[in-house]
C-alpha cells in the first residue's frame, strides 16, 4: 500500500506561474478586444462617411423630406419613405412574432408535458437557424401568391408578405428568450399560487408572466430590433419602391433594402450615392442601438423594482 509520503507533486517556480498567468490574461484580453475594436472601427467609418454626406445634404431634408430619389435627378434625400417602409415591416412582423412567440413560450414553459417540451424547443430553435434568404423566397413564392389570391390588388412585391415572413422568422427569438425567462421563475411561486386554488392560466398570467416580464419585454424589443435590421427578406420580397405609402399591399423599400440595392450596383467611392448608404446605415445603427439600450434598461429597471 502506498504511503502518502511517496506521492510527489510537480514543483513549479512561483515566478513561472506568475508570468504564465499574466500572459494568459493578455491573450484573453486581446480576444475580447477584437469585437470591441471592430465595433469602434465600423461605427467610426459609418459616421465619417455620414458627416461627409451631411456636408452636402442638410440634416432637415434627410430627416423630414418625403421623397427619396438619391440616384435619380432631381435628387431628393428624404428618408421618411424608407423609414416608413422599415417601420411597416417592423410593425407587421411584431404583430406576428409577439403573440405567437409569447404563446409558444407559455405553452412550452407552463403547459407542455416535459417530453413534448424536450422535442419542441430544439425544433423551434432550428427555425431560428434557417437563413433569412430562405424566408425571403418563402415570402415571394408562397406568402405573396396566397395574399394575391385573397386580395387581388396585392402587388408582387409588397410590405405585408415580407413583414409576415420576418415575423415568422423571429418567432423563435421571442419564444426562446421569453421561455427562458419564464422557466427561470421559481417553481415554488407556481406551487404557492396553485395551493391557493389558482388555475394554470391564472398562475401563468398572474404570477409567471409578471415575474418574467423583464425577459419577455427584452425579447420583444430585441425582436423589433431584429426586424428593423432584417435585410434579405425585404430585399427579395418587399420591393424597391421608396414611396411614402400606408398600404402594406404595395411595394415599398426599407432602409436595409435600399442599402443592399445600391451596394449591388457599381457606385463610385466618394460620390453622393456612396455616402447615402452610410447615412442610411448610421440611421439604422442608431435605431437598433436605441432599441438594444432600451432592452437593457427594461431589464435593469425591473430587476431594481423587484429588490
Amino acid at each position, binding site marked *: 500500500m502506498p504511503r502518502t509520503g511517496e506521492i510527489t507533486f510537480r514543483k513549479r517556480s512561483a515566478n513561472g506561474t506568475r508570468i504564465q498567468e499574466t500572459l494568459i490574461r493578455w491573450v484573453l484580453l486581446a480576444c475580447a478586444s477584437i469585437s470591441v475594436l471592430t465595433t469602434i472601427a465600423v461605427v467610426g467609418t459609418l459616421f465619417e462617411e455620414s458627416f461627409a454626406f451631411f456636408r452636402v445634404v442638410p440634416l432637415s431634408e434627410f430627416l423630414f423630406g418625403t421623397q427619396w430619389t438619391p440616384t435619380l435627378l432631381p435628387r431628393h434625400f428624404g428618408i421618411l419613405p424608407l423609414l416608413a417602409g422599415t417601420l411597416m415591416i417592423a410593425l407587421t412582423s411584431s404583430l406576428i412574432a409577439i403573440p405567437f412567440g409569447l404563446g409558444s413560450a407559455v405553452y412550452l414553459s407552463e403547459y407542455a*408535458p*416535459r417530453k413534448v417540451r424536450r422535442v419542441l424547443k430544439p425544433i423551434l430553435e432550428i427555425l431560428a437557424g434557417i437563413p433569412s434568404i430562405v424566408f425571403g423566397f418563402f415570402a415571394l413564392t408562397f406568402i405573396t401568391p396566397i395574399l394575391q389570391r385573397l386580395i387581388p390588388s396585392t402587388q408582387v412585391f409588397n410590405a405585408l408578405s415580407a413583414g409576415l415572413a420576418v415575423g415568422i422568422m423571429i418567432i423563435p427569438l421571442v419564444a426562446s428568450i421569453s421561455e427562458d425567462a419564464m422557466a427561470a421563475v*421559481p417553481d*415554488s*411561486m407556481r*406551487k*404557492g*399560487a*396553485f*395551493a*391557493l*386554488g*389558482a*388555475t394554470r392560466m*391564472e398562475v401563468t398570467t*398572474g*404570477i409567471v408572466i*409578471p*415575474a418574467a416580464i423583464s425577459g419577455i419585454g427584452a425579447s420583444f424589443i430585441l425582436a423589433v430590433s431584429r426586424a428593423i435590421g432584417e435585410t434579405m427578406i425585404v430585399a427579395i420580397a418587399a420591393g424597391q419602391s421608396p414611396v411614402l405609402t400606408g398600404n402594406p399591399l404595395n411595394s415599398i423599400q426599407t432602409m436595409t433594402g435600399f442599402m443592399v440595392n445600391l451596394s449591388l450596383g457599381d457606385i463610385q467611392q466618394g460620390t453622393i450615392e456612396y455616402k447615402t448608404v452610410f447615412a442610411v446605415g448610421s440611421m439604422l445603427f442608431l435605431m437598433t442601438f436605441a432599441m438594444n439600450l432600451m432592452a437593457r434598461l427594461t431589464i435593469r429597471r425591473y430587476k431594481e*423594482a*423587484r*429588490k
Partner: protein
Amino acid sequence: MAVKVNVEHVDFWYGDLHALKDLTFDVPEKSITALIGPSGCGKTTFLKLMNRMNDFIPGTRATGKLIYHDRNIISYDVDVVELRMKIGMVFQKPNPFPKSVYENVIYGPKRHGVKRKADLDLLVEKSLRQASLWDEAKDILNRSAMTLSGGQQQRLCIARCLAMEPDVLLMDEPTSALDPTSTQFIEDLLVRLKEDYTILIVTHNMQQAARISEKTAFFLLGEVIEFGDTREIFLNAKNPTTERYISGRFG
C-alpha cells in the same frame, strides 16, 4: 374532539414506489396534528395528498378514502380548485409572490370573486392580524414582499392562506428555514390559529411537535407506525421504534 378528516386505508404510489401504505387515522378539528418521522417516510406526500398537490407529479396514483366534509378528497370528481380554497398550504421555504405585500394577501380572494376595494382592505388587515404581521406590515403594504425578512415572508404566506378563509391548514416544515426567534413566533401563531383552524404540520423538530400539537402521527417507510395523543406518544410510546425515534436514537 370532532373529526375533520377521516383517513381510511390510504395507499399512494409514485410509479412503482409504494410511498404510503394503508394509512388509517382521524384528524381532529380545531387542533394541531403533527406528522413526524425520518426523511422520505411519506409525511410530505401525505400532506400533499390532502390538497392534491401530488397531481402535478406524473405517474402517481392513490387509493383509499380521505373523507373531508363527506367527500373523498382522493376521488377524481373533486374540484381541485375548490378543494385548495378550503385546504390551504404553507410551504417549507417562504414563497411569497414578487408582488406587494397587499397583492400577496389578496391574490387568492381576488381570483375567487372578491372585487370591492373595501372588502379587500378589510381582508388584508384581518389576515395580516391573524398572522401576527399587521403591526410590522401595515405601513409597507405596497412594498414588494421580497423585501421582508424570511420570518415575515413565512407569516405573509400564512396570511395569504388565511385570506381564503380556509378550514384546514397544511404546513410542510414551515419553520425549518427560519431562525429560532421567527420559529417561536410562528409556533405561537399556530397555537392561536388552532382555535379556528384544523392544522396538519410536518416537522423534523421533535420539541416543536411536543410543544404545539394535540395529536401525533409517526411515519416510517410509508406507514403510520403510531398515531395518538402527542403527550401519550412522547411520554409513553407504545411502539419501541417510535420511542427510539423520538428520543433521537435514529433518524
